């Protein structure tokens, strides 16, 4: 037998990642790397218009181009023109327009798919798009959400008679409760915040290869997706190809951030055409296609009102959202604002909460999940208005927060929104962050700079955030009308040579699951990390899963790993007891070895048990051979990471340029499996949240032209645009899962945006500035400051 290395406790260690070897040497398996004999490459003709009738479409000209084998508009595609699914009908009367893969007679956003060409090479397919004759008759477009819900607005879907997709209300204390709380208030602060539209902009463009494989009509689909399992179900439902004939593989996937949590029309088209033609079909998007056809994120108008006593005790909160759906509904488009709905009250105690949301259609790219999905929006609004309330009360903003937050001894605590937070310690995280930040020193410096009239003013921004992670208990999802469940699956097999296969239903795209999941299994089984292989992202080899999004993979998937590992040990214990001739209860299990209590010379390693389970020569009667177990875990509840983020911002009052001087965050994500990976997740989240505050915004003109349709126009920050970060943590284990973990994928993105804007507003408060629109580019800040100086606001 192979010489076996000894197990060393793995959970909590900053192990270097297993994934890196292939990623650092160019041996990565991206979808676009796949080249299959006989493949046809798909190119898509997209609408250059925001809203138009297609008055003529003739694809026949494309067929005259070299290498072209077929060209399709909606008419040619016929019954294969399946519709993009939406799996979250949030209300019974939600307006759900048809979203065909190829537009039928009308285009509703720039980038809408009009026709496609299949050719021998990608270049030939792209060339042949020139041969398609298409004529448009422009229709009035509606871009602005306020306009969209006015009477007489142009309609995105004229057959629906309205641009309203749905109206959702949540009044946990009943109708009128907020008004009653407000009646007792000494102060009511009301604001409108604009949470602008963002583009996920993962680095690997989307790509799909669909190919008939084998002899029984199977189709294998490789896709740059976060959700191979969800995708398989949906592709089966919408294309009619039998689910058991579909295999979806997510090979190495280059980022997602929610943008690859989707069943995209291009995926549907590749599958439908590969199935019809019996040939591999390949499609890879250009970045410009990505910017206009990958779903966007955020884009909410937030009317928020907070009521308090004059000494700063919160009484109630009212939130009225208008949320941009875009032109169509995609997988969970309508549900995104509801993921934020529960989180507006955040960490604060109050008596009444009132929420409403109107989802509206506009002639823009559909929105859907983007890192945080609803929770960055809610956190932005509450953390911004807490600063505004503090200002109006003349209170220190951190003092206002301390006065109202849930104290550590009050957990578990049921919030005004109806969620029960299991654990947390806002005091500890805040104390640590303030010390690292040198909060008092910075406040003193701020006073001096204000007094001296320094042209560069200093602002301090606070965000004491929490989020709802670990999506999700299936019954809760059902109550919210989400179609699927929220469980996760794991199978663990200890092979005859003692090596382990860990099959997970999570689907990483940069998060390092291969390393972190090995650590969990290593400690459970007592088998070294390097002997564990994590298998993921292929519905043939990992048949069950709910995939990776919403900071769920560890909080939910980790439980399945732990439980599957425990089951393996339980079975191994029976075999070991049989062979060591003792009762199972007389065995202790430590570091991968079973030993007889009181006679430690009698021992058996779990790897040796695995061989016995394989040979099956001497197993207990009735016990099945092989050492493996599976577990499917439905989480008991959500988890609630929290943290305190502090931003010191220097704002040049002459140029409007904002420069981050220091950024400190202390996050409490519960037990950490791999602190190196955790830190990396926080950094990346911070960058995206800061980017929303300072740099990024998808912009349409009034005709629906996307003005930010390339990396030359949409400002994804590069290295000089960001500072180094100071990150630290406190550990308050979650009590809703046995690992005590909470989730970290979205923390930085959720927390940082309000910290940054609060810092800019704080810097400019002496000039009468009470808000700065995002992104706070120098020109925007300068204009805001000048308007305030002139008494504008």
């Amino acid at each position, binding site marked *: 037998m192979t010489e076996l290395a000894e197990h060393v406790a793995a959970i909590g260690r900053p192990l*270097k*990642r297993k*994934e*890196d*070897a*292939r*990623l*650092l*040497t*160019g*041996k*990565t398996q*991206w979808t*676009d*790397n796949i*080249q299959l004999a006989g493949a046809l490459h798909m190119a898509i003709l997209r609408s250059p218009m925001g809203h138009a009738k297609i008055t003529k479409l003739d694809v026949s000209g494309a067929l005259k181009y070299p290498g072209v084998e077929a060209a399709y508009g909606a008419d040619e595609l016929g019954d294969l023109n399946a519709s993009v699914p939406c799996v979250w009908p949030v209300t019974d009367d939600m307006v759900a327009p048809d979203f065909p893969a190829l537009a039928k007679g009308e285009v509703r956003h720039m980038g809408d798919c009009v026709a496609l060409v299949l050719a021998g090479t990608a*270049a030939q397919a792209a060339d042949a798009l020139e041969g398609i004759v298409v004529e448009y008759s422009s229709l009035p477009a509606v871009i602005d959400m306020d306009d969209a819900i006015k009477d007489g607005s142009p309609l995105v879907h004229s057959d629906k008679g309205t641009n309203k997709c749905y109206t959702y209300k949540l009044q946990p204390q009943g109708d009128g409760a907020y008004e009653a709380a407000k009646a007792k208030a000494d102060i009511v602060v009301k604001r409108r915040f604009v949470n602008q539209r963002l583009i996920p*902009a*993962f*680095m*690997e*463009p989307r790509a799909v290869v669909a190919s008939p494989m084998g002899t029984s009509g199977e189709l294998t689909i490789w896709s740059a997706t976060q959700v191979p399992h969800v995708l398989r179900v949906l592709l089966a439902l919408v294309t009619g190809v039998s689910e058991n004939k579909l295999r979806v593989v997510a090979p*190495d*996937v*280059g*980022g997602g*951030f929610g943008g690859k949590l989707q069943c995209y029309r291009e995926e549907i088209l590749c599958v439908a055409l590969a199935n019809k033609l019996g040939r591999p079909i390949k499609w890879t998007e*250009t*970045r*410009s296609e990505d910017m206009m056809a990958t779903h966007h994120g955020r884009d909410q108008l937030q009317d928020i009102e907070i009521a308090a006593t004059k000494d700063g005790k919160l009484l109630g909160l009212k939130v009225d959202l208008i949320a941009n759906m875009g032109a169509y509904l995609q997988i969970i488009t309508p549900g995104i604002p509801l993921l934020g709905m529960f989180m507006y009250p955040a960490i604060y105690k109050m008596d009444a909460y009132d929420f409403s949301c109107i989802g509206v259609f506009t002639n823009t790219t559909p929105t859907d999940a983007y890192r945080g999905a609803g929770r960055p929006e809610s956190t932005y609004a509450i953390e911004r208005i807490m600063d505004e309330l503090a200002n109006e009360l003349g209170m220190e903003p951190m003092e206002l927060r301390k006065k109202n937050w849930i104290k550590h001894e009050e957990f578990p605590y049921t919030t005004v929104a109806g969620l029960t937070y299991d654990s947390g310690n806002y005091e500890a995280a805040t104390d640590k962050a303030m010390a690292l930040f040198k909060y008092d020193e910075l406040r003193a410096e701020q006073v001096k700079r204000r007094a001296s009239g320094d042209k560069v003013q200093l602002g301090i921004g606070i965000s004491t955030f929490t989020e709802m992670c670990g999506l999700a208990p299936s019954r809760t999802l059902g109550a919210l009308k989400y179609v699927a469940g929220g469980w996760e699956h794991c199978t663990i097999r200890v092979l005859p040579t003692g090596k382990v296969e860990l099959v997970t239903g999570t689907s990483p*795209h*940069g*998060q*390092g699951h291969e390393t972190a999941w090995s650590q969990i299994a290593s400690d459970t089984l007592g088998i070294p990390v390097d002997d564990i292989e994590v298998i993921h992202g292929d519905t043939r080899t990992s048949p069950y899963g709910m995939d990776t999004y919403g900071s769920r993979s560890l909080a939910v998937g980790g439980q399945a790993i732990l439980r599957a590992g425990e089951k393996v040990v339980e079975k191994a214990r029976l075999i070991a007891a049989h062979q060591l001739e003792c009762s199972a209860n007389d065995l202790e299990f430590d570091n991968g070895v079973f030993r007889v209590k009181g006679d430690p010379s009698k021992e058996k390693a779990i790897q040796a048990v695995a061989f016995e389970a394989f040979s099956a020569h001497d197993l207990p009667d009735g016990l099945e051979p092989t050492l493996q177990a599976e577990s499917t875990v439905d989480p008991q509840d959500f988890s609630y990471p929290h943290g305190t983020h502090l931003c010191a911002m220097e704002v040049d009052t002459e140029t409007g340029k904002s420069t981050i001087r220091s950024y400190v965050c202390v996050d409490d994500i519960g037990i950490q499996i791999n602190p*190196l*990976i955790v*830190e*990396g997740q926080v*950094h*990346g*989240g*911070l*960058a*995206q949240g800061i980017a929303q505050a300072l740099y990024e915004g998808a912009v349409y003109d009034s005709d629906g032209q996307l003005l930010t349709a*390339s*990396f*030359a126009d949409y400002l*994804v920050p*590069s*290295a*000089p645009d*960001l500072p*180094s*970060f100071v990150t630290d943590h406190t550990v308050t284990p979650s009590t809703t899962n046995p690992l005590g973990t909470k989730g970290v994928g979205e923390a*930085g993105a959720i927390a940082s945006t309000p910290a940054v804007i609060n810092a800019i507003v704080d810097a400019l408060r002496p000039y009468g500035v009470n808000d700065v629109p995002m992104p706070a580019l120098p020109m925007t800040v300068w204009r805001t400051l000048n308007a305030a100086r002139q008494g504008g606001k």
Partner: protein
Amino acid sequence: MTKVSITVDGVLHESEVEPRTLLVHYLREQVGKVGTVVGCDTSSCGACTILLDGRSAKSCSVLAVQADGSSVTTIEGLAGDEWHPVQAAFKECHGLQCGYCTPGMVLSAVDLLSENPNPTEAEIREGLEGNLCRCTGYHNIVKSVALAAETMKGGK
């Protein structure tokens, strides 16, 4: 079609290319060097960065015919018997997550360090301005390059 002779990762390739073929497409589709990737269509992201005669270049902004007679090093040819110190430092400092920007980021860093073996943090950030990363927030990339500079000073 035009004939080109390009040495890629130490191996001479003589190929016929369409004159419009970008170097990155030549590398990926004709030479099979799929470690070099495409991230945008505006020469903004730097994911396709290679070393062209030893200097970093975005291979989407060079035509294959322009590289005729040149020597190209991709991420697949950077390591010798051992990894290049920049590759090792990226692993050590967790300077990558999804890994899509990584080939370009590593090769840009190699060029940066050959020009400036002792960069400050600000110089590292400026030096990598042409390479976008969406995962790391650059924090650990900057640390990786600083560590690689230290390692390379040690004569490695």
